[in-house]
């Protein structure tokens, strides 16, 4: 029995509404995407949802600095990754792109700095 899933694409602010028909886990059709990234999002969302995680980490200066995963991570690992992020301390100075944690929880994604701080 085929079933359909309605998705809102999160790749860009257009937020295209998409419709995916599935037979079990197999994707039969995808409608509504307007770019290749949107199509890939629909495939990922129906097989293994992924999200880019952004947060802050503590710095050696006593404040915080913004960070992100440099690629999307499995959605269900967001809170586990947050635990690692909350234990990470960045030693100042930091520059945009500095890697703080490589291969975060074996996701293949690195935790990188997204703002400069002296």
């Amino acid at each position, binding site marked *: 029995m085929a079933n359909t899933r309605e998705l809102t694409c999160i790749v860009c602010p257009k937020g295209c509404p998409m419709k995916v028909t599935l037979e079990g886990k197999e994707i039969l059709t995808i409608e509504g995407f307007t770019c290749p990234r949107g199509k890939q999002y629909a495939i990922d969302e129906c097989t293994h949802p992924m999200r880019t995680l952004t947060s*802050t980490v503590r710095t050696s200066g006593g404040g915080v600095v913004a960070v992100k995963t440099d690629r999307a991570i499995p959605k269900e690992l967001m809170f586990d990754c947050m635990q690692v992020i909350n234990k990470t301390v960045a030693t100042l100075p930091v520059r945009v792109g500095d890697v703080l944690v490589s291969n975060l929880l074996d996701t293949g994604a690195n935790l990188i700095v*997204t*703002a400069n701080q002296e």
Partner: protein
Amino acid sequence: MKQIDLVIIGGGPAGMSAALAAYEQGVTNLLILERDSRLGGILRQCIHNGFGLHRFGEELTGPEYAWRYEEKVLEKKIPYLLDTMVLDISPEKVITATNTSLGVFQIQAKAVILAMGCRERPAGALALAGDRPSGIFSAGTAQKYVNMKSYLPGKNVVILGSGDIGLIMARRMTLEGAKVHAVCELMPYSGGLARNIEQCLNDFGIPLKLSHTVVKIHGKGRLEGVTIAKVDENRRPIPESFEYIPCDTLLLSVGLIPENELSKTAQVELSPITNGATVDQNRQTSTEGIFACGNVLHVHDLVDYVSEEAEIAGNAAAAYLRGALQSNLHIPLSTDGKIRYTVPQTITEEKEITVYFRVSDIFRNATVKVLDGDRVIYSRKKQKVAPGEMESILLKPVQFAGAKALKFTLEVE
């Protein structure tokens, strides 16, 4: 008094883009005045991703997007003053500002670009019944606390208003260990982007209660809870639907207002609809040589469009300084109400022009028509238009040549 060709008020994405564009056009005697201690504006606290896809073809966080521009400002050695508050701009373009090293000082500018951004509609603008305990924040204030100061404002949160900042903060507070009980939206639709409802609310099972509002604040000293209610079609609370939610934090995401106090001192004409200046296609205001761009002009959904608009203003300011700014027409643009406003509000030059506009409600199968009297000069069908999504159309000189005035209308089937 110091003489400077071009002074840019505000060092956020609009101010930096405008300065860079003007510099590229040969304006080297210029200065950015910024009240914060760093360049970057509000992007510095918008640590989430989703910026720059339109501009750079990649997904950046707010600070990364800001850095792309700050890096160029530094590289070109464009002068800027930080921690500097502009107090007054006269119609003659005398700028009065203050900072701790220069005291109060004045600059005579030949051209000015207003790029002050916007501020959030505050709690005081809502008629909320009950006391005023601590624990009520605008979403942007909470964003600053969490992302820049590392304070979590509370553990149990209700959010009123479904603007993008509220949605982003619902996710952010959840990731930091708070429980977001509900997002209440007075209107039957969200003012935020569809993607943010998906990734900020649905991902975390946070309910979006449309046609709901907060009717009472509970607690003295600290917020203890809120009473929410469903509203009828006239947006009046339905008593039978009252529901008490215990919480220690209420975030407000109920709209943004362009910050135009300085525009008023410069006697720039403001639009009662956008709360920003009325401008022509060059983003020149009613005062010659004063330009406006970014969220101080009208609130944008995407920073990418802010940068685009700021470049128009920067280029035009440079042309103005060269004495090359064309202005040989005067075509006012009006709207029918379903289309709330357009930017620009006038066309003064025969060249290709992108007109941005917003609608007043969600309309399906609507046709955007631009009329010159009875003559339709532009017509385009749209599957769906919504107040939360800025629309734009491109007009060519052949389409508006000879027109006295243009009216933007939306025909709904």
